């Protein structure tokens, strides 16, 4: 295990000592989470194994780039479904979420590959898109849930504005703004803390793989900006789409939209 980029099966087996410690802590504090911990770890290992095999085919140097695009489309579709599952069945957000991830992916690809920040090859395209969609997922779910909560908690205020003749967009604007701010602030805070409070995954991976720290920092900074931009784009598109779904075309609030 001299090469930090390849730990081998023994290395993986030894790392499960940390899982055992987690299980012991759960048992000691009587958290009742042992089963969940085991399930989560087995599931993660299985998912990564499958993804590893598939990713190997996609990012192989001889594989056509179209495989990467198909991978990204699948990732967006899966993220949209995952968003729907986490928001619940009260409001259909699948299509809006797909549009949000799609818009962010298109913008990110245009900047990073169109301006040749990274070379347009599967080895860069697939991981960067994954990083972007994965990080945006939390913000997208948060903004959707927050928008629904704004209707539940401040529906009277929204209707008071509608009753004065405001359009649905104007009547809901302060609430949409509040929800969007709440979704973006965690990512902004995370961006502020990077390098001081935590070393992000991409940088850790590059350093472990033996890349020069300075080069790793440059890549990580670009990735952080990618993630921040993606979170902002997806959360904004989601806010616009969900806000629209909460009202009828004649500017009535759908209070019972389930």
């Amino acid at each position, binding site marked *: 295990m001299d090469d930090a980029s390849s730990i081998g099966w023994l290395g993986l087996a030894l790392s499960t000592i940390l899982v055992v410690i987690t299980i012991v802590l759960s048992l000691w504090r009587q958290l009742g989470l042992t089963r969940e911990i085991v399930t989560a770890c087995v599931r993660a290992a299985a998912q990564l194994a499958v993804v590893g095999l598939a990713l190997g085919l996609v990012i192989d140097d001889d594989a056509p780039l179209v495989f990467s695009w198909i991978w990204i489309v699948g990732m967006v579709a899966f993220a949209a479904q995952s968003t729907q599952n986490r928001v619940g069945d009260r409001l259909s957000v699948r299509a809006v979420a797909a549009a949000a991830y799609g818009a962010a992916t298109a913008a990110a690809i245009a900047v990073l590959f169109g301006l040749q920040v990274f070379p347009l090859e599967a080895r860069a395209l697939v991981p960067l898109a994954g990083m972007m969609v994965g990080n945006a997922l939390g913000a997208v779910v948060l903004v959707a849930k927050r928008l629904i909560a704004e209707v539940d908690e401040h529906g009277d205020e929204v209707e008071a504005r509608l009753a004065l003749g405001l359009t649905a967009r104007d009547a809901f604007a302060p609430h949409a703004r509040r929800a969007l701010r709440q979704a973006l602030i965690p990512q902004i805070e995370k961006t502020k803390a990077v390098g001081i409070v935590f070393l992000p995954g991409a940088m850790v991976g590059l350093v472990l793989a033996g890349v020069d720290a300075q080069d790793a920092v440059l890549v990580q900074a670009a990735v952080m900006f990618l993630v921040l931009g993606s979170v902002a784009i997806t959360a904004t598109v989601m806010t616009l789409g969900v806000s629209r779904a909460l009202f009828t075309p004649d500017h*009535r609030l759908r209070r019972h939209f389930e």
Partner: protein
Amino acid sequence: MATELSGFTVDGVTQRRGGRITLDSVDLTIAASGITALIGRSGAGKSSLLRLLNGLDVPDAGTVRWHGVDLADLDMTEHRRRVAHVAQRAIPFDGTVADNLRVAAPTATDERVGDLLRQVGIAHLVEQDATTLSGGEAQRMCIARALVNEPEVILADEPTSALDPEARDGVESLAADIVGDGVAWVWVSHDAAQTRRLADRVVVMDEGRVLASGTTEQIADHAEPAVRRALED
């Protein structure tokens, strides 16, 4: 069937909410002048009817017309400026009292805002944070906010029910003044004495139906005891 073209015409309106019938085959005309009181017990359908008139809800069956035009055919934002709604509980928005008036009319001049606040008796509060107003002050501000777009009708859902007697008298006096300026009221009330003091016409509702409508005198002298009782304390 209701046929009057001026004001509201409600034809065969039925509405269900949560499996319950809130309005049941309602036929009614409401003139766009004076003060029309909607009275009846809790759950009679008064507030539901008011929301339909403002276009915040649509009926499951039947039509609501404004000056003879089906609300479904109107630009709803424009309609709501013509028939402003004042809720039972005053809902101040963030910002000053002046900011609140400009939510409804962003281009309202300082002079216009000042005139309206003078009309409702709170001109001295123009720069005060609206969320710190007393109940009576906040309700007056909401009435000024409703007036800023010069509506023909104000739809008021028990606007004095949360106020003390002094504040209530002030709002009632203000309502009478506003009627004098040519603005009509449709006023939901639980208070028989207030209805007798204020209303020109009364609509008595019960369990989603209209029991009777007419002038206050006609309702007070109605042949049906249940209708007459609605105007008794």
